[in-house]
């Protein structure tokens, strides 16, 4: 991309703060491994080989899958990586999340944090990527996000399995007095075929674990994979069909108290006046305590059961200070509009856009303004955490996407050292980016200071959850194109304004760090798409609105997928080009992208005539390293527009579990369609107006379309899976509705303009 040189000379967010610190520490320290956190945590007769593998003398094999299971199936796929190389079946292993530890840093999560497109393999881009990986290690972020878990783990977890297997063979060779080269493994045992002798892994595990790890770890060829590349039965499925207590909200401890919170409905605002007397006297209420964290101010209610706490929270009579941000949605939109005309950061700048537009005839110009609202995550499981502070040690149980952050910030808020905090990460009833935040953990930790050592489970009401999120930011975009004589775009100019989620996240998590440089998430999904247009400029502007915003499934691409692909459809219509053909021409330099578009068009029989009252729309977004095309078919019915069918083609590079990948693509598309159809977080008097599923609903089974999915493996780098189906969903739907009705939807949610059946 032509703009790389210009951009690389500048700083950019995360990169700015992180690279500066990271590079200085040097290569040697980077290579040095973190200690194995399982060492201090073994049961009798159990041995550990590395942070991912424990084997007991009774041949119990435990694999640590240190990424948060929020439904995306990651515990199954990570376990399969180790099991594949350890040569055991998934039904032979126990899988644990493991402790919070820097050993489980996620280096891939930041690899694409630089201002480069995924397909940019220039020297500069690769150097920054490697640097970001190092930074990921130094920040020691044990995080689940950025659709990065499999990419991060693919080499290191297979190596962990292979190294353990080689050590087990070496120990068996000693014990049996047979050359290692003559031994084989199967089903958790090491065999010598010629003599029929065998030993279990467990029988030699203790000896094997003391041996030096092999200098040369040999990985299986892809052709020899037994588990990877094939759909596995998810390891979490039996628990999830029997109602087993696997979620944070299910944690039950002896002598446990219950609680909830009532935080200021205006972000960052303190209570001006509060009357707690009525609430404090209600039956079952033990104590009401103030809560102050970097997330905001309010009260914690400690009670004998959850219901008593909920009732007392309702009875708290408080007045809250005025907000520091505009009071209502109209005023917030105005700030975003103003931001559009202020100086932003140019994140892509091919050709000479100003010159290309200077002499453009009016009839060759296409212009459009797009907007999207704030969105809540609305995970099915409302935020909650259980905490116990006893004898100076804090134990905290919660679903979370960042255990080392939970540990660090809970230690800080309670005023103890990090090594006095044990984080127990449970399964999550949905994450979607919400549990990257740590507010639920901080509240529980603070309340545990007030219970004299008794554990307390703090559950938020749905209303509290809906009104205290780190929202998907609202955004506004101004788009302009100049068409050539053939109807193809010769120039596009895109400016997107949105509050910076990185600045917002730093304020909550690390208020002492000031954000430096532009926030590339503002333009993610717009500046890094595989299209060649001679003059192509994408500018991002951070709008000064301080409502908390954060990562929402697919982050910036959830916004810009809609903007960019809706606008491309407008270009296609204006230039009288078929939308599929337009994309194929513009992405000719990226064969993986072309193949995705061809595949989804073939699946959907794009171009074939449809009966009256039905239409299709398509969109494509490259995000998190995966190339995804979607086509949506809609029908006009007496009850409104019905989404009949969705076709998805996705190139993920290497498909580690096609069953889980298909489920994720469908899930992400439904998540995107739900938001596009009807979701909006709006503001009045400085407070969120929505409160529960009656006014912030999602797609129901009766509205759910049929799906058909194709998974491709053409590109040479692996992509992510959990988020990539979301960005193209909204624009494909908008483009289909245009094809059906002639109505161009540029503002979400669509329910403002159309009715859905």
């Amino acid at each position, binding site marked *: 991309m032509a703009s790389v040189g210009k951009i690389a000379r500048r700083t950019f967010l995360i990169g700015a703060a992180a690279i500066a610190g990271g590079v200085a520490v040097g290569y040697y320290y980077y290579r040095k491994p973190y200690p194995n956190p399982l060492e201090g945590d073994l049961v009798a007769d159990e041995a550990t080989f590395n942070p991912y593998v424990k084997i007991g003398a009774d041949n119990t094999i435990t694999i640590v899958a240190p990424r948060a299971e*929020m*439904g*995306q199936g990651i515990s199954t796929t990570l376990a399969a990586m180790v099991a594949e190389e350890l040569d055991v079946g998934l039904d032979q292993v126990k899988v644990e999340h493991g402790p919070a530890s820097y050993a489980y840093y996620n280096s891939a999560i930041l690899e694409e944090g630089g201002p480069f497109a995924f397909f940019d393999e220039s020297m500069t881009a690769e150097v920054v990527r490697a640097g970001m990986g190092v930074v990921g290690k130094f920040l020691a972020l044990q995080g689940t996000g950025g659709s990065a878990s499999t990419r991060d783990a693919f080499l290191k977890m297979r190596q962990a399995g292979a190294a353990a297997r080689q050590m087990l063979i070496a120990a068996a060779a000693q014990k049996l007095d047979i050359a290692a080269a003559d031994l084989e493994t199967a089903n958790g045992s090491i065999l010598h075929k010629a003599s029929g002798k065998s030993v279990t892994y467990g029988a030699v595990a203790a000896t094997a674990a003391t041996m030096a790890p092999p200098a040369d770890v040999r990985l299986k060829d892809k052709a020899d994979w037994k588990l990877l590349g094939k759909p596995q*039965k*998810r390891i*979490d*499925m*039996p*628990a*999830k*069909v*029997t*109602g*087993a*207590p*696997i*979620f944070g*909200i*299910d944690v*039950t401890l002896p002598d446990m108290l*219950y609680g909830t919170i009532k935080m200021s409905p205006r972000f960052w605002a303190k209570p001006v006046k509060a009357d707690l007397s009525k609430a404090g006297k209600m*039956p*079952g209420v033990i104590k009401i305590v103030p809560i102050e964290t970097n997330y905001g101010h309010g009260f914690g209610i400690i009670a004998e*059961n*959850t*219901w008593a706490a*909920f009732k007392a929270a309702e009875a708290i009579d408080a007045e809250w200070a005025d907000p520091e941000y505009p009071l209502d949605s109209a005023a917030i939109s105005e700030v975003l509009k103003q931001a559009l005309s202020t100086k932003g950061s140019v994140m892509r700048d091919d050709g000479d856009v100003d010159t290309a537009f200077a002499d453009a005839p009016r009839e060759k110009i296409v212009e459009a303004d797009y907007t999207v609202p704030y969105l809540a995550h609305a*995970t*099915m*499981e*409302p935020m909650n955490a259980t905490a116990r502070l006893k004898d100076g040690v804090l134990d905290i149980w919660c679903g979370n996407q960042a255990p080392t952050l939970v540990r660090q910030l809970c230690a800080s808020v309670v005023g103890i050292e990090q090594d006095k905090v044990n984080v127990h990460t449970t*399964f*999550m*009833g*949905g*994450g*979607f980016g919400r549990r990257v935040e740590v507010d639920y953990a901080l509240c529980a930790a603070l309340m545990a200071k007030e219970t004299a050592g008794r554990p307390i489970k703090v559950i938020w*009401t*749905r*209303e509290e959850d809906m009104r205290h999120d780190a929202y998907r930011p609202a955004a506004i975009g101004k788009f302009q194109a100049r068409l050539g004589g053939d109807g193809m775009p010769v120039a596009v100019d895109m400016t997107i304004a949105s509050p910076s989620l990185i600045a917002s996240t730093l304020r909550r998590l690390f208020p002492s760090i000031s954000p430096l440089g532009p926030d590339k998430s503002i333009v993610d999904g717009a500046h890094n798409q595989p299209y060649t247009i001679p003059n192509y400029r994408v500018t991002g502007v951070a709008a000064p609105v301080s409502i908390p915003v954060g990562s929402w499934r697919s982050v910036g691409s959830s916004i810009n997928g809609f903007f960019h692909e809706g606008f491309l459809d407008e270009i296609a219509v204006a230039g009288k080009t078929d939308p599929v053909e337009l994309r194929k021409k513009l992405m000719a330099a990226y064969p993986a992208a072309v193949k995705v578009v061809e595949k989804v068009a073939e699946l959907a029989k794009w171009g074939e005539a449809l009966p009256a009252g039905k239409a299709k729309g398509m969109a494509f977004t490259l995000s998190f390293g995966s190339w995804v095309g979607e086509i949506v078919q809609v029908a006009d019915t007496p009850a409104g527009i019905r989404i009949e069918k969705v076709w998805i083609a996705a190139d993920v590079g290497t498909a580690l579990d096609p*069953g889980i990948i298909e*489920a994720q693509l469908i*899930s*992400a*598309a*439904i*998540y995107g369609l*739900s938001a596009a159809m009807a979701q909006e977080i709006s503001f009045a008097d400085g407070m969120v107006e929505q409160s*529960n*599923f*009656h006014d912030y*609903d*999602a*797609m*129901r*089974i*009766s509205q*759910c379309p*049929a*799906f058909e999915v194709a998974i491709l493996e053409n590109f040479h780098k692996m992509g992510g899976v959990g988020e990539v189906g979301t960005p193209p969903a909204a624009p494909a739907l908008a483009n289909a509705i245009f094809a059906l009705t002639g109505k161009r939807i540029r503002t979400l949610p669509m329910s403002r303009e159309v009715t859905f059946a």
Partner: protein
Amino acid sequence: MRLTVDGQAFDINADPEMPLLWALRDLMGKTGPKFGCGIAACGACTVHVDGQPVRSCSLPVGEVTGAVITIEGIGTEGRLHPVQQAWLEEQVAQCGYCQAGQIMSAVALLDEVADPTDADIDNAMGGNLCRCGTYPKIRAAIRRAVVLKTAGI
């Protein structure tokens, strides 16, 4: 007050206004039914009272007169209900949080209609929200459960 839950009698001391859900979860240790909304809008808390699916988050425990069955009472990992078996075979769950409620609604549906139409499924399951979007697999699993039930599994 005395309640029968999953075939077992519980004597509890609860505010009669307390929703059945919280009595189950906090007072009786039945964490299978989940809290999602508190206003009967998402179905995660669905249990059966006298065989009828109800949203336990909005039913005061003082009004419960019949026997309560939760997800923990229809089957166990070693002996699954046909609907649970179908859910397992179709690999329905993602995060899994709503699935206890989905399964309880599906069990009630199949108890009433042996071979439901798509419209029957939409009607019976429309009150159960899934944020992971497992609906296509839920539909497939209900179809599979019809077959398993017919086969007497």
